[in-house]
């Protein structure tokens, strides 16, 4: 291994041969550098975004018309299951961990992540987990096709899983280990590695949201691991956890799964909030409105996420008191979420706004996420949910909260920080084209699914009644345009890394950005090692109204 980290004040030492990246491809295998690992996470997530996206294209192609055209029903169900697992565990979560790796040390003035070796391991555990999961696609009986929730007894029946089940379960274990290690690292970094000048309430919102997200991850990933372990023993070791004849209860699995699953959806949305809260002030040229309320709203949402899980299972059969409790508790989430939407809007109010690509994606996020939130409120009403449950309405709802919210913000983050990371400017024209194609097609794709769901079209089926044909065709056309548009993003990422417009970006990249975050005071591109001595002062523009 290498020597002790330098403790000197000369920044020009970072190209010292002992401290630069290793040569060749091995660099990426054994790296402990937070920027390298961040890049690995982001590129892996981008690749998985296209793998999961291809599965979505299969789904939309099959649903283009009623009847069975391209795939058999079991494979169709494998596609819906694997699309969800790949997108959640392979694309969205790793992408945010990648952003955390790149940005948290830069934003808090730390030389690296607190536990660099474990950082390397958490990335490779992710790859191992996804490999195990992907291997099931090529197995006898195909990939799991009982839905990403892996509900028993369905998922324990041979017809549903073939040989895939133990691989899927161990994949969940590996992904859990990866997430827990990543989360531990993020918490230790934020609490232990901040520049001395940065108090907790000076931290950028992105850092705050990740601190809280990391707590959620450590609390609920072991719960999912425990649930799938019981599936494994029920299937292979004669236990009766989910078998009523033996005194168990299949509904127990649903409770445990959603005790994990509901915090899990906030694991995907809280860092989204953090990035939006970072980008919007820069392009509104105003401090973030209500910084402290943003922090408290994030913490409130995280707390509430633990006590609302059974709203995913209103129709399963629950005492009426349970239905009412979970209904009202769920509705309360609208309050802190509303605080956030209000604050983003108020940040833009009377701002000197410009509309570069990251800002466009962020504004679309505020509008479209709010729509996803409102459909969520509709479904929180237990008696109404009996109508919406397991229809395309819920599909439309959670895709609005994930695609034009999490995915859009990940795109925004790419456009926002790529110039900083690479030192090159992306092509703004193509970026805006990507935005407009995405924002129009995503609504063509998902908005009609509300109508389909309200009219009664069930989810997870390869065929449907004839009256659903028109909206399905429109939705599929939107899906194909959306899928194709994302190739533009792939091109832009490649092009920007290779030199982009050729314009050399400044250290700030965006006008006055250095008032908003420490990372913009560093050179562009960011050197391999940064903040070997912590900054003596931190920008407080983003928290101005709290001091």
């Amino acid at each position, binding site marked *: *291994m*290498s020597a*002790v*980290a330098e*403790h000197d004040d000369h920044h020009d030492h970072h190209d010292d041969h002992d*401290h630069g990246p*290793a040569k060749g491809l091995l660099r990426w*295998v*054994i*790296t*402990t550098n937070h920027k390298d690992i961040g890049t690995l996470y982001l590129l892996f997530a981008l690749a998985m975004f296209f793998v999961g996206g291809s599965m979505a294209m299969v789904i939309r192609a099959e649903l283009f018309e009623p009847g069975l055209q391209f795939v058999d029903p079991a494979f169709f169900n494998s596609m819906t299951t694997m699309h969800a697992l790949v997108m959640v565990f392979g694309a969205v979560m790793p992408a945010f961990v990648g952003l955390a790796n790149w940005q948290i040390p830069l934003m808090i003035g730390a*030389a*690296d992540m*607190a*536990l*660099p*070796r*474990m950082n*390397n*391991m958490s990335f*490779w*555990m992710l790859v*191992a987990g996804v*490999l*195990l999961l992907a291997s099931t696609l090529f197995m006898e009986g195909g990939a799991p096709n009982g839905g990403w929730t892996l509900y028993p007894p369905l998922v324990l029946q041979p017809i549903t899983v073939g040989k895939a089940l*133990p691989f899927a379960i*161990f994949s969940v274990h*590996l992904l859990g280990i990866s997430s*827990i290690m990543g989360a*531990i690292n993020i*918490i*230790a*970094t934020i609490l*232990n*590695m901040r520049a001395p000048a940065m108090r907790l309430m000076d931290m950028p919102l992105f850092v705050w949201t990740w601190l809280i997200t990391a707590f959620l991850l*450590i*609390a*609920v*990933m*072991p*719960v999912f*691991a*425990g649930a799938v372990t*019981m599936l494994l*023993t029920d299937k292979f*070791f*004669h*236990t*009766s*956890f989910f*078998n*009523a*004849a*033996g*005194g*168990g*209860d299949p*509904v*127990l699995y649903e409770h*445990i799964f959603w005790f994990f699953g509901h915090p899990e959806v906030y694991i995907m949305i809280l860092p989204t909030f953090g990035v939006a809260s970072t980008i919007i002030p820069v392009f509104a040229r105003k401090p973030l409105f209500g910084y402290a309320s943003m922090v408290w709203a994030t913490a409130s949402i995280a707390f509430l996420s633990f006590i609302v899980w059974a709203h995913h299972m209103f129709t399963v059969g629950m005492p009426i008191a349970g239905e009412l409790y979970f209904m009202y508790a769920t509705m309360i989430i609208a309050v802190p979420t509303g605080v956030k939407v209000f604050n983003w809007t108020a940040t833009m109010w009377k701002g000197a706004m410009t509309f570069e690509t990251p800002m466009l994606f962020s504004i679309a996020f505020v509008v479209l996420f709010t729509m996803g939130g409102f459909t969520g409120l509709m479904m929180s009403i237990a008696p109404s949910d009996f109508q919406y449950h397991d229809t395309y309405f819920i599909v439309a709802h959670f895709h609005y909260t994930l695609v034009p919210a999490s995915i859009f913000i990940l795109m925004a983050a790419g456009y926002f920080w790529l110039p900083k990371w690479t030192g090159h400017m992306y092509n703004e024209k193509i970026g805006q084209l990507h935005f407009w194609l995405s924002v129009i097609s995503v609504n063509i794709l998902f908005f009609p699914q509300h109508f389909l769901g309200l009219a009664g079209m069930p989810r997870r089926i390869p065929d449907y009644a004839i009256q659903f044909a028109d909206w399905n065709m429109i939705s599929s056309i939107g899906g194909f345009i959306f899928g194709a548009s994302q190739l533009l993003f792939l091109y832009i990422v490649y092009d920007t890394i290779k030199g982009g417009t050729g314009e050399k970006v400044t250290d700030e990249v965006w006008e006055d950005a250095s008032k908003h975050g420490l990372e913009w005071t560093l050179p562009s591109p960011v050197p391999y090692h940064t903040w070997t001595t912590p900054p003596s002062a931190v920008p407080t523009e983003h928290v101005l109204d709290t001091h």
Partner: protein
Amino acid sequence: MSTNTAYYIPHKATWPVIGTIGLMIMLAGFANYLNGSSIGPTMMVIGLIIFIVMLVGWFTLQAKESESGMYSHGVGISYRMGMMWFIFSEIAFFGVFFGTLWYTRNLSVPWLGSGATKEILYSAYQSTWPTNGPGNVGGHFEPMGAWGLPFVNTLLLLSSGVTCTWAHHGLLANHRDQLIKGLAATVFLGLLFVGFQAMEYHEAYTEMGLTLGSGIYGSTFFMLTGFHGFHVCVGAIILSVVLFRSARGHFKPENHFAFEAAAWYWHFVDVVWLGLFIFVYLM
């Protein structure tokens, strides 16, 4: 010892990827084994060997770095936070199985023997605890009593907590003899616990008809005590490593993270056992 104030950041790491490969081969092997493939056990052994080599290599490296004074106070804080949050994740993991026990005993088992379920499906079923369900899954069994071996094991683990703390006091006062004796006693008591639990399992399987397949009672009993027993084994291995290092003269009164982490883990395992003794054996 830690004269270094800089935060140590390693620049390359080979063990993480080796460990990942080992774990992945082991799990893929296990999955193959469960699917009835003959290559499974071989893969499991190969993966396990790689994983153990990684553990030995990585921890040797860490111990060497620690003893040469490369870890500053700041690094120590990160390690302590890491261990603390790791134990928090373990609490969440055990929480699932305790939650399962609570849910089945207080909600789903009573539901099975009442209302429409009783009228339509299982009219003869009396929902009492312990139970193996209306299907009498696994056949007749006797539940495990609390006051035999389990009570002895409770005393053993509680005493091991005391010896562990006694060793810690020895380390703090630089009484190396007390440190080593305390650790040795802790490991011994831990192993004794595992031995008694093995006897208890043997008795359950051969004489009481109580197996992992004995309905929900057998499932929760063996899952909870089994995962706990596994954690006792891991804790005993960790403590043995700390004992080995102590015998080699490692650790200083002001700097001994590995000892602290092992002790925290051991106390955590201890507390889980108290929960088990109350909720699995007594109630």
